[in-house]
């Protein structure tokens, strides 16, 4: 049996465990042991600002995705099967288009000469084009778009397991629909909220393509810090230290959340 897993395991060891280990080593070793790279990451302003911005954007994206995703998951759960399949298909449809394709679509929509600005000017709502892209706004709009399915799917999976009887019991005891929602349904859906929020937050922390293309160079997220240190400045040690801090943040979040719900649930395998 071990022989059967060995090819797959070998690929994983050679192409993810070894490279990440290499990064970790490189972050602390340069002609001898050094913590200089970490000192820079934790004290220099650009690094701090980038980490802070990344966490802020990730929090905002997670919050918006929850606000947008919860009603959709709720609706999909409360309509007949045919409708819920349609709703879920629409949710996963963008999932299967490349992230690059969607970045292009958002550029086409949000640019100064883009569809939305042209439409608003045609309606005489605005006289000057709005700056919708090449800033944090554009990054957040496109990032939420990409990550929303990761929120809706675990929410829907959790809601489906909530027995309908409980809501009826609440109603029969005299609670209004909103009260049964707040006291019964909402608390029971919290594991799904936690799973969805974790996935969206963690994925957002490492986002690269979308902020790079829609952020206009001003929204420097941590991933861009890593790539610039490698490609532009040849600062491999600094890039590695940033990567290690990012990875540890992600693992710490997974570990913290796994104390409340199983990892399988977060990764959407159940």
């Amino acid at each position: 049996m071990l022989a059967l897993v060995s090819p797959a395991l070998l690929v994983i060891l050679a192409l993810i465990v070894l490279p990440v280990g290499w990064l970790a080593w490189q972050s602390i070793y340069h002609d001898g042991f050094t913590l200089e790279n970490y000192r820079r990451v934790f004290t220099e302003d650009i690094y701090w600002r980038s980490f802070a911005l990344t966490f802020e954007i990730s929090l905002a994206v997670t919050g918006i995705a929850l606000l947008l995703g919860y009603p959709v998951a709720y609706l999909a759960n409360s309509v007949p099967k045919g409708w819920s399949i349609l709703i879920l298909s629409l949710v996963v449809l963008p999932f299967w288009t490349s992230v690059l394709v969607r970045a292009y679509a958002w550029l086409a929509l949000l640019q100064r000469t883009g569809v939305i600005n042209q439409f608003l000017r045609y309606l005489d709502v605005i006289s000057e084009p709005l700056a919708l892209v090449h800033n944090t706004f554009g990054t957040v709009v496109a990032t939420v778009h990409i990550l929303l399915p990761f929120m809706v799917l675990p929410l829907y999976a959790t809601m489906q397991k909530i027995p309908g009887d409980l809501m009826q019991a609440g109603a029969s005891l005299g609670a209004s629909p909103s009260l049964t929602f707040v006291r019964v349904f909402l608390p029971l859906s919290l594991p799904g909220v936690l799973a969805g929020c974790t996935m969206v937050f963690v994925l957002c922390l490492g986002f690269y393509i979308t902020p790079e293309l829609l952020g206009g160079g001003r929204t420097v997220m941590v991933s861009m810090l890593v790539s610039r240190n490698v490609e532009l400045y040849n600062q491999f040690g600094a890039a590695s230290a940033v990567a290690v801090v990012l990875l540890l943040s992600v693992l710490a979040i997974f570990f913290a959340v796994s104390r409340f719900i199983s990892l399988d649930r977060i990764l959407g395998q159940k």
Partner: protein
Amino acid sequence: MTRISPARIALYVISALVLLYLILPVLIIAPISFSSARFLTFPPPSFSTRWYQEYFANPAWMQATRVTLTIALLTVVIATPCGVAAAYAISQSRLRIMRVIHMALLLPLVVPIIITAVGIFFVYAKVGLVATLPGLVLANVMLGLPYVVISVLAGLQSFDPAQEMVARSLGMNRLRSFFAVTLPQIKSSVVAGGIFAFISAMDETIVALFISGGQYQPLTKRMFTALRDEIDPTIAAISTLMTAASFMLVLAAGARQKKGG
């Protein structure tokens, strides 16, 4: 429950708007790709296939397309058997270490891709695999493995291992009984896993940005560079083709999975 409450109406409206937000960007690409305008204008001034012609006439885009398809095909050919073997072993073995190995095989989904990309770049730089086809294929095999493993494990869950025992008690060896009894029954999830690995390889961008170069640059890398430097409607044509291709593949995978397994 027959009367529709205001809260219910609000739920319908909000959900409709969110769904519109989700699908509008996907739908907007096709009309742009058939527009004659050099810049993004809406509505498109006239119908034209010039961006498709530019794509097919451009040797750089064609070379990138060949590279992408080669990588994706080789990825499937390598990742599928490795993933199936691993999933089979994980589901059959009662060894405790299998649980750890299972988690390890899902690592590509957990580690932020930018970190994986930079790490692979450093390792490849040492062993001379940067800007080579084998290097690109190997990286995509690693990224595609979790999809095969997850899909096949799901298929194996509904398979009764006792059937294989029967075959073996009738004299087949383990390998033959796997191919004669087990594989036909999990075929659908194997094919679905392979298709997901193909799509993953076709769409992969970030690792390619770091480790590809020269003549071995996949479509996504050229698209990324083109999008960053100057927005060219040829990308709308390529995007439309890519989206159509991946939808057809997903439908194929979905149809496969529904048939059983």
